[in-house]
């Protein structure tokens, strides 16, 4: 069997259910692959791991991948299991937020570590400065939890539809207390959770062959997970070594993730790609990327894998 190592963007959770399902159900084995899944963490940059040769393929968000590409690390999107973005800004009504016009003068929680790009380009499209002050917004680097919203340190925080949002709900706030700004609805959605490899590797036919099999099996995993959310969640729990994830949360997460993967067969939708690039380029004075990327994606793998 051929070895493939996959670096995840975050800790083991249903966000990555497709890969765990493929592993557990033997889809990889059927493709004659021996897959190792490396969980991520708050200080693990998948891009860096890829650059260092610690993994063959990584799950990454497109803004971070394109930014890395500009840094001289040629990452290429070979598949895009997530069709839509799950990111949103979750705000408290009692902090006085009703519409996007209320942001000015408030504190907003944002993830950094390569996840800040969509937010930054959104703000610059809204014409809000992110250095604090009356006319702009005060940005707080959100940690790993939703506490800033709960104890009032921030008016809004970043959440994923499938994860942090539910933690806010679990903590006792009701949907009535909250206002949600989905990036999809604001027209600033960027592509999340794609599969990326190093460009130089694509010159190697053996590698390309392995990736074709890998993507095929992974997409089988995703489709299986969409159809069997509860079983998929249990499989994820099986692989969670921290032992801290709960069944309820993972099942719920799987349900939400399924909505995001639903529209994708794994092949990158070029229109989505272009929308993402446009959004990142339109960053005003401080855009995330400065020029149109070349060769940042390929359909070669998915075309071969899915036919």
């Amino acid at each position, binding site marked *: 069997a051929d070895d493939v190592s996959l670096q995840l963007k975050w800790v083991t959770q249903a966000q990555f259910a497709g890969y765990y399902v493929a592993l557990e159900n033997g889809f990889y084995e059927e493709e004659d692959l021996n897959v190792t899944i490396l969980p991520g963490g708050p200080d693990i940059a998948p891009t860096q791991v890829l650059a260092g040769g610690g993994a063959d393929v990584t799950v990454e968000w497109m803004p971070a991948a394109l930014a890395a590409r500009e840094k001289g690390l040629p990452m290429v999107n070979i598949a895009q299991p997530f069709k839509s973005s799950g990111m949103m800004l979750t705000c408290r009504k009692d902090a006085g937020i009703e519409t996007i016009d209320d942001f000015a003068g408030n504190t907003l929680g944002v993830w950094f570590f390569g996840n800040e790009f969509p937010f930054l380009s959104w703000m610059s499209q809204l014409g809000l400065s992110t250095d604090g002050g009356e006319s702009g917004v005060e940005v707080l680097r959100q940690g790993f939890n939703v506490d800033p919203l709960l104890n009032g340190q921030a008016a809004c925080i970043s959440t994923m539809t499938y994860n942090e949002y539910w933690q806010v709900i679990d903590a006792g706030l009701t949907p009535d207390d909250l206002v949600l700004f989905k990036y999809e609805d604001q027209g600033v959605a960027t592509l999340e959770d794609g599969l990326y490899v190093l460009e130089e590797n694509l010159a190697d036919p053996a590698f390309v062959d392995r990736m074709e099999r890998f993507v095929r099996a992974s997409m089988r995993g995703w489709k299986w997970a969409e159809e069997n959310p509860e079983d998929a969640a249990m499989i994820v729990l099986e692989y969670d070594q921290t*032992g801290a994830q709960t069944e309820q949360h993972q099942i719920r997460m799987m349900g939400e993730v399924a909505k995001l993967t639903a529209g994708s067969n794994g092949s990158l939708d070029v229109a989505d790609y272009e929308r993402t690039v446009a959004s990142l380029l339109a960053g005003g004075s401080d855009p995330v990327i400065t020029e149109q990327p070349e060769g940042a994606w390929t359909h070669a793998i998915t075309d071969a894998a899915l036919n």
Partner: protein
Amino acid sequence: MRNLLPILTVLGGILVLWYLSVAPMNIRVALDQAERAGADIVPEGSVERRAVPAWRLMADNRDHVRAGYQLDRPRLPTPAQVGQELWKTTGEMALNGRAWSKRSLIYHAWITLHSTLWGFALGTAVGILGAVAIVYSRVADMSLMPWAIISQTIPIVALAPMIIVVSSQLGVEGRGLPKAIISAYLCFFPVLVGMVKGLRAPETSQLDLLKTYDANGWQSFFKLRLPASLPFLFTSLKVGVAAALVGTIVGELPTGAISGLGARILIGDQFGTPLAIWSALFAAAILAGLLVTLLDLVQRLALGRMGARA
């Protein structure tokens, strides 16, 4: 044993203070919860309450103060809650034969201990070898010592991700080794400093004595310098093992997130379960206590056999 009563008294004092702090720390969360459940709270609305000091809230909402002691997600859990959580994730699981389950703190403590011991071994070896080099070579003494100090001012958290990337590039699987390296990085310094002191502990007259016997370098190392340094070694080993544990946990905090006590703290933080954080913290404390006590015992035994006074 003479110290038992004072220690218990101080511990008792700490417990009382802790219990007393729980009410003001948790009152806001308790009131928010009660309000959502439909109770009348003065003043209304959590935003209004932010301007009111905790003692006022407690005075105006006496009925809800008690609720602060039973929250699921307290800002400050009670000692009893922490104890229960600890027991649930250790003793109770062990009794059910699930000590090695991923949900058991015993399993995570073991992961942490494992890396700590490797780091400790590595750090101790580096520290002792460095000390020998420093004591026997002037060049090493002059060039290494300042850099050993400087090395400790570098934030290891910043190095952690790089250590992981580099070691995976070198073909090392898993996170155990990178953690052990970080832990060794913190551990070697106290051992080095202690051993340098220890190896230099023999007085000139003791060294001269060996010279009058025309002893060679090995003999003076094994018959004088090494035994003379043992008390220093043990003292610094105790500091070193504690440092190794800190290193492992720091290594697990932002980079591990897979398993180990540091990962439990991180995950506990991410999912807003303070009890998980607190119980992992206490487990780490217990682990540190056990390690230091164990070394203390070894020290007593070894030095006792070497004729140290009881």
